[in-house]
């Protein structure tokens, strides 16, 4: 079970969180033309990375904030956790 440092609450067990997928995906802007391919990429297509991955988690049983977690998908090492409005420097 992972130990995730919520940037708002501190270190908590994985079972307080729910996984939210790739954090680098940006939702296309509303009311803008977008090609089928780009829309498909946004909705469906995800890379299944081995290694460092920036992903979303929600601290469901805690502060309910969505956070970003930089995690190694092979070793589960967590390098960094960020608030929703922060980006990796």
């Amino acid at each position: 079970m992972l130990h995730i440092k919520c940037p708002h609450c501190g270190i908590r067990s994985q079972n307080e969180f729910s996984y939210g997928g790739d954090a680098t995906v940006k939702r296309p802007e509303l009311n803008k033309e977008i090609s089928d391919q780009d829309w498909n990429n946004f909705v469906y297509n995800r890379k299944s990375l081995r290694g460092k991955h920036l992903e979303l988690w929600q601290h469901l049983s805690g502060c309910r904030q969505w956070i970003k977690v930089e995690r190694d998908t092979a070793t589960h090492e967590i390098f960094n956790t960020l608030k929703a409005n922060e980006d990796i420097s």
Partner: protein
Amino acid sequence: MTQSFRLENVGLINKDKKLSFKFNGKTYYGYEGDTLASALIANGVHLVGRSFKYHRPRGFFGAGVDEPYAVVQLYRNGETEPNIKATEQELFEGLEATSVNCWPSVNFDIGAINNFFRIFLHAGFYYKTFMWPKSFWYKVYEPFIRKAAGFGVVSTKHDKERYEHKYEYCDLLIVGSGPSGLASAYAAAKNGARVILAEDKPRFGGTLLTSEVNIGNQSGKEWAEGIIAELKEMPNVTVKNRSQVFGYYDHNMLVMSERISDHLPKTKKFHPKQRLWYIRAKEVLISSGSIERPIVFGNNDTPGVILSSAAKEYLKVYGVLVGRNPLIFTNNDSGYETAIEFKKNGVDPIILDTRKDPQSEIVDEAKNLGINIKFSYVVVAAQGYKKVKSADVAKISDDKEQLGAVENIKCDCICVSGFWTPTIHLASQSGNKTKFNEDIDAFVSGTSKQNEITLGAANGTYTLDETLKSSFETGHELSKKITNNDNKISFPNVVEKKSTTHDKFWCVPLPEGKNYKRFLDFQNDVAVSDVEIALKEGYRSIEHVKRYTTLGMATDQGKTSNLNGLQLVSSIENKIVPAVGHTTFRPPYTPVSIGAIVGREVGKHSKPTRKSPMHSWHEKNNAVFVDAGVWLRPRYYKQGNENLFEGSKREAKNVRTNVGVCDVTTLGKIDIKGPDVAELLNRVYTNAWLKLPVGKARYGVMLREDGIVMDDGTTTRISENHYHMTTTTAQAANVLSHLEYYLQLVWPELNVNVVSTTEQWAGAAIAGPKSRDLLQKLFPNSDVSNEGLPFMGYMEGDLFGVKARIFRISFSGELAYEVNVESDNGNFMWKKIMEIGEEFKVQPYGTEALSTLRIEMGHVAGSELDGRTIPYDNSLEGLLSKKKDFIGKRSLNREAFIAEDRQKVVGVVPLDKKTSIPEGSHLVKDSNAPLPNPKLGYISASCWSVEHDNPFSLAILKDGKNMIGEKLFAMSPLKNKVIPVEIISSHYVDPKGERVRS
């Protein structure tokens, strides 16, 4: 029967307390503190089972967790449990156990015939032999294998025992209470660290209990007892025996299984049988010691062949002799320690040492005691079938290739020592890159991935002095890092006998013309010849060899066999052992009961149960409850002998003719505040929300980004910047997370706050033609007329002093209202409704009537919004705004979603107007078409229409728009039904929707 192999005045058991127990139906006696194994050996019982494949007789090989043979079926307090190691099971009064893997009995086992056909049972036998003829598998092969193989029988009864889970945090978790565990725990604890010390055996101290050493002028055992006593008194230390740390997971989380009651005749009241600990440790010290490894020789599986360290443990801890005529076969000094213990207790052992001329204090001591030692000697084969009777021995050449003349020596046990294998399982599980240590011919922990350090014998350190020094040091250093304290304790003086190096010899060659089975894996019957065949057949990777031969695969996980298997592969392949590498160690280290893993989460406890504030009223009024997610909801209120069908029909009819009241507390409620709420709703819902006035509610549908309907519900504007959203019961949590996702990550510029208020409000739906009359009497001071509170209107009211929210919304299709009050007032509201409603013939209605009402109205719900349908499928396309963008809109023009013959919700009635259509039935054109019969759609929900008094169903049907009037068949292979049906509009009642506005 007397305990003829029990010594007087030796052992740590309580001889004042005699215990009786049964093994294979026969009564024996032992003492408190015995294991089942030690008690049986004390009684001279060595035959405990049959081997897995050849059904050869099996005895005891170890004295603890490494035991490969002595697996028994245990009977305790009316329950039975398989896969119990006799070497771990503590004796209690009335214990009963039986042998496994033998039929009809352990003494006469029909499967033993396999032993004579063993030429056919070589590696990969199962893969090769039972392949043909194919039809034989189910009828002949499988039943035979199932009867002949296996380690015991699982109880099919409900397990009444209680198992617990516990979460714990500590600075240092120390696994094993031998010298290194005790020393590091003591040093760390004295330095203020929070320590958990776990020992899998009942007694603390590990090898200190059996070795002749002196620490600080005390015997090893006394020193251990002193340290444990002190640790137990310290508030920052948790000391646990009978506790096996079996798994090392990510981020330094370890799982430990504590056997609390297994050693007692029955579990004490309010006590669990076992407890599973989830321990998150800042640092982990692995001091799990070493397991002695065998030397491989002919018939080395005969009962009476036993690890030398186990023989010593039986003697010193339990006061039990494994034999009166022991032969010690060793390649190192450990065997001498066992021999010396025998000698001291009046038994004359013979030592066969593979080494030519070892020089050490221990060897000298054995010589001085006059023990018969034969150097450069090996055991070629054990003789005897159900027990060792003698041993064929021979001199071996210096290059270990040539055997001299074979002699026969009488003996009743062979204690074997092939040096030690560090227990690296936990380190390896943690991701540690293990390395091969040439000095000890075994793998030890290498580079750590997590915060773990291996100490003492588990790290290949075999002198007490070195072990204690490094353990005190490590315990101190690690705790200093965490607590910043620097309390050092003085290092005690250690006296131990010096030993010399071991001989790398591990496998005795076969003598000319002999074909003895030489076993590597005792539990799975894997012999040297099996591995040789596997390699001949081209298996190279050790992982493949393992799976093909089953080497190291059974419940003992190859604790005694792995390394010898590797030595064999490397010697055949002409590689060094580290080049072959070891197989992956995976949790659990020892078998863990399913009960412990499940814990308290059984049956109703597997999830929380949520009840509405009116639950007690429902109970008192004969509600029959149904699970709705985690909620308990009344399904119907039983009157007299009514069944579900009759009761729900009565309730639904009463709503259509008079007035009914339904507990809708379970609906998800989200309180939304902020200046940008309208904008958020406009993006989340498919319809327009910017112009919703205060005091009005609106129905909305929300999609996922892929265009699939996520949920529906109403949202009401309470005041300028304050909205109240309702969701379906099932989707409440998901919708909240969905809103939070968009607010926090996608559109953080929106100034909106959302919070769940599901539990804050109790809700009652009041529905039926007389609902307004009832409402007016509930709120005499409010104008609830059609003008004062029109359809989709909202107002606040005063319910006899209680603040209430009144929504004019309808799920039933009747004139209807929903009244919300704060949860604490829910019961008050409900009782008032029932009391005042009496004159209007109000009746409560449950979820079954609720479904009936919505189905015949053609209102879609969870069974249609099932995560596979889009708005069009549910005839909700009228709610799709063309003017604005919303979540999921872009997906709706996908080819399949705009197909001309796209599926759509329709109504279905049986042609005979009598036969109810099972939910899930398939709609087909031709009921006699060959399989697979093309499916046009499926029945999503069925009811008995109270309006028309005949069955009615909703279906999602391909090209539903153009299918109205068609005749199809509803087929349910599950219920074996074929029902001719007609497709009609989904709006079976009040298609114009006049009642809700009346």
